[in-house]
């Protein structure tokens, strides 16, 4: 992407001197109020978080707010919950991304491939989980599906004569991955289905004449065509999945132990269960750092896809 951008600039030297004065003209001045507002919006909370992270700030011992340097960071990182939390965050993001992209592509390809009665209804049904609040969907899964006594899965297990599994107790992280995937798969389907409709029909017909079967068309035409929307899905979902909280709070409360704790939940735990705002702020900053590392890696890997092509 960078090289092509450079090429166009180098190829049209006349464009460079014309582009320069634009940054000095009223445009900059006119957007400055919104830029300033956004900057404040970001800087103030960030500054306060940095400040809190450097002082002792425990709600149980008010008034003792002395400067402690990086102690909060040290305690957060050495907290027994930190390593599992970080790992679970990565596992959660990675698995949900994999599930929503793979199944998203397959489901939207299937929907696109065949005309059948009620396709419109099926589309709406497929997309609707996205519009359900995280707390509500987590409760639905907890009480109606995973519950070892009243859940549907338990009923199925019993029907086949097996011992019902207490999913949230024995496979907490996997259960949460299921719940979150159920919510985010529709988003992937929505984006990919729309993208698939924009695939040029002539290209498909040309490929048919070239001897490509449905699988070859999927592999050589549909998938490359979907590269860009898949990149969009991965980017957007990553941003939201790094901060999954409600699903964990309503189902497992991060347990048993730290088995389903992610960083967001750990920070909540520090701030509002252990009342240590200073340490929670340090955790928040570490989470910001991790999110930024993830963002840089993603942009390196996928951003190319977004600016390149067509």
């Amino acid at each position: 992407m960078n090289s092509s951008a450079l090429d166009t600039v180098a190829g049209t030297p006349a464009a460079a001197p014309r582009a320069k004065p634009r940054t000095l003209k009223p445009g900059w001045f006119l957007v400055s109020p919104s830029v300033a507002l956004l900057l404040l919006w970001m800087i103030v909370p960030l500054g306060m978080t940095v400040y809190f992270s450097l002082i002792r700030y425990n709600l149980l011992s008010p008034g003792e707010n002395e400067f402690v340097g990086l102690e909060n960071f040290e305690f957060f990182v050495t907290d027994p919950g930190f390593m599992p939390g970080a790992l679970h965050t990565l596992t959660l993001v990675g698995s949900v991304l994999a599930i929503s992209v793979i199944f998203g592509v397959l489901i939207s390809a299937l929907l696109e491939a065949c005309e059948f009665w009620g396709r419109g209804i099926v589309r709406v049904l497929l997309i609707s989980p996205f519009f359900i609040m995280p707390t509500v969907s987590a409760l639905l899964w907890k009480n109606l599906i995973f519950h070892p006594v009243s859940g549907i899965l338990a009923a199925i297990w019993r029907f086949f004569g097996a011992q019902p599994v207490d999913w949230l107790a024995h496979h907490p992280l996997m259960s949460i991955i299921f719940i979150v995937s159920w919510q985010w798969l529709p988003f992937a389907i929505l984006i990919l289905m729309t993208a698939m409709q924009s695939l040029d029909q002539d290209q498909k017909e040309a490929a048919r004449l070239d001897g490509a079967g449905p699988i070859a068309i999927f592999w050589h035409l549909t998938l490359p065509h979907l590269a860009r929307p898949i990149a969009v899905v991965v980017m957007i979902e990553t941003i939201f999945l790094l901060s999954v909280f409600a699903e964990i709070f309503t189902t497992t409360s991060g347990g048993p132990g730290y088995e389903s704790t992610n960083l967001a939940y750990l920070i909540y735990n520090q701030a509002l269960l252990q009342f240590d705002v200073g340490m929670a702020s340090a955790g928040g900053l570490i989470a910001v750092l991790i999110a930024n590392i993830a963002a840089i890696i993603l942009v390196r890997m996928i951003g190319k896809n977004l600016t390149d092509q067509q």
Partner: protein
Amino acid sequence: MADLSIRNLQKGFDGHAIIQGIDLDVRDREFVVFVGPSGCGKSTLLRLIAGLEEVTSGTISLDGKDITDLAPAKRDLAMVFQTYALYPHMTVRKNLSFALDLARVDKATVKAKVDNAARILELERLLERKPKQLSGGQRQRVAIGRAIVRNPKIFLFDEPLSNLDAALRVQTRLELARLHKELKATMIYVTHDQVEAMTLADKVVVLNGGRVEQVGSPLDLYNHPANLFVAGFLGTPKMGFLRGTVGAVDGSSCEVQLEAGAKLTLPRQACGQKAGASVTLGVRPEHFNIVPAGEGQLQVVADVSERLGSDTYCHVRTANGEQLTIRVRGDFGPAYGQPLELAFDTAHCHLFDAAGVAIDKRSAAEQAA
């Protein structure tokens, strides 16, 4: 060999008959052009031949083998689309080799074929580029190249020039004509542009409303249109039509009394019309002459004129309001409203009966030949 024959082909979409029984033969190495107004079914007919649409009834056979229900890839045909339909994420080389790669042809053969097609179409230096880095004309050539590497029995073209600008269209038209000779290929070409039809075709098929109106060589169709539709469709500016009735008829000529006021005697050996039958006279713009007052057969009033430099197209109105176009020398330009007198070139006038079918000026023996 590539002899295509279509028998009683029909195609309907949701109860609407698009193709209403077509019989057609395409011989080896022929350049056949389907032409007609939009919605006449010409593209559908091509897509039926390609196998992209399912046939409702009738048969298509290639070299005696029935291909009506065969998969598109197995028909040994290649198609060039109006939008080119290049694969956007593949290089030109990969675009060209895609069909061969799918057929698992060995690498050396693929390379030889791709290089050969690239040489013919002068694409050698573009092989590593992506389609988006090519101009319209270059994309068009890649699309043709993709057809060439498959070495098909018949090339199908679906309005391949309509996305090009005027200058490039003329150039590509010539290249296509040259390619047809060089490759000794059989080609079927769909267009709505009669200039392409006239210049490229060995055989023109004029379609209208899902039926074949006339099949023949371009000049044959131009000089002997079988009916009013073909007469009006081919030729720019359009042929002028004048209503009239048949007067005296004898074995060698036929008298026509025009509503516009003139009386003409046309050479017709087998007129087949009774006196008093209503007919339509068709005259092409180049078969009128503007003559001094008193020497012509028809008085008209000049409407606007289009002066092209080489020729002037004078639009005129007859006394009863019928519109005609006359093609005259470029230095002549009548004033708006100026009265003019016309003489007909009666040897080149066309006559159509009440049903719109041409009353041929040739004798039955000449027609058969």
